């Protein structure tokens, strides 16, 4: 089934709850291809940040990733095993998202381990998509984000955010040359 909105450009947004009345939950997935760069594929990491109206993470507990698989109230959960062709997925229970959360930002970064360094410029493709948690129908899909990446080691892919009573989704595609440290500084997190 074709998504409601395919090939969404950076900066474009869509009202998910207007397109799908009664929408209760989302799956946000990242689909990337690192080709033969196994060191890059091994270190690619997805993270989700629950932010207040000031654009900063509510707390350290509101950074959801493989080592902290859920936000405290369980509204956002990272799946240990992604399905449907995505490398990583999270589930968002929209009704359970705390009122003080204004934005849920989905990022990916290359973990800077002791081994060789890799950059996102080596990705062959990278796409973010949003599914309806009820039935897994694909709602939106971003344009190819890998083309404009070079020496960046982190990327804010998209965000699910409140707009009045609606939930909207926006494609960000914003790269960070300082990696996860740059993202942590932007969102007020301690590493």
């Amino acid at each position, binding site marked *: 089934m074709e998504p409601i909105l395919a090939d969404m450009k950076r900066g474009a947004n869509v009202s998910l709850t207007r397109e799908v009345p009664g929408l209760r939950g989302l799956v946000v997935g990242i689909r990337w291809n690192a080709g033969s760069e*196994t060191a890059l594929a091994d270190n690619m990491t997805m993270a989700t940040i629950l932010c207040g109206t000031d654009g900063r993470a509510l707390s350290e507990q509101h950074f959801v990733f*493989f*080592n902290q698989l859920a936000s405290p109230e369980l509204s956002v959960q990272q799946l240990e095993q992604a399905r449907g062709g995505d490398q990583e997925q999270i589930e968002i229970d929209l009704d359970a998202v705390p009122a003080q959360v204004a934005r849920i930002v989905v990022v990916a970064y290359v*973990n*800077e381990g*002791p081994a060789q360094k890799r950059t996102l410029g080596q990705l062959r493709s990278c796409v973010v998509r949003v599914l309806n948690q009820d039935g897994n129908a694909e709602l939106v899909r971003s344009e190819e984000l890998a083309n404009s990446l070079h020496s960046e080691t982190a990327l804010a892919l998209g965000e699910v955010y409140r707009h009045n009573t609606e939930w909207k989704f926006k494609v960000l595609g914003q790269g960070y040359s300082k990696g996860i440290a740059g993202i*942590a500084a932007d969102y007020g997190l*301690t*590493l």
Partner: protein
Amino acid sequence: MIADPRFAPKRTDLPWLRRRRLPKSAQQPPARGLGEFLAGRSTHQQPEPTPAPAMPPTPAAPPTPAARPTPARPPAVVSSSLDLDGPAAPAPPATPAPVSSSLDLDEPAPPQARPAPAREELRRKRVDVRVGNGERFITSPTEPTVTLTALQSGIGTLTIEAAASAEVGDLRLGCAYELADGFELTMQMTQGNRFAPPHSKRPIVVGGHDRFERVQLDLRQCRALKRLIVYAFSEKRQPLRWGGTLITTTHGGARIETPLDVLAGGDIAVLMSIYQVRGELVVRAEMQTLFGDVREVARAYGYDRINWLDGRTPVE
């Protein structure tokens, strides 16, 4: 000699240890308190002023003289269907001095009601020591432990470096580690074995030597690590003049510094242990010297699934 606990005589002086947790008010006979409450005679739990006597294992203990003076029972007991303190209570109401077996749930409450301390006060709190971005924490014998947050434990690389000059001697670092799957071994640069697991294309622990001896953890794989210890030794088996500082750095630049000049004697020293507890790395300055070799250190810290070629070389 320590007797076999299975055949040891029963301890009757520690009744509360048989519970999984300290009761809300350790000395309160529960049924009576509940009965009082349900019958509307009290508004809250009523702890007794004196500790309860030892609890004998046999419930059918005959009435014994009271071990301590207790206030008399309230004369008229109104029974409601929910009252656990019904009229069939064992203690005869006519007895002037009420009997007190320690299992007697019918213990009279003291006249003045004092609210029990809140549950939070009773629970002993353990506060984790944390170290923030760009902050520095110096471990000491009284505060040897720092707990890294889930983010600090899962992002980037954790670097442990022994900043020591030639004055100390040929100080080298090594690790004994246990992975989440139970695999145990050592990582020791001096043996040409600088990866853990050995020969891995994606090692979790990597030894190195830049300006100083160094051990690095790949935190993307922090969940695959159960625990490790970092030890220091002399490669040439010469005595070390312990000194310098062990510096542990997170990806965001938080630093834990452990002075090594407090070490004394021994051939080898365990400097640090790291345990992964539900995604958080608990970093502890061990600062323990001992005589022997890597084998003795590993055994002393319970890495007993490593077999040895000699005191320094494990069998892979």
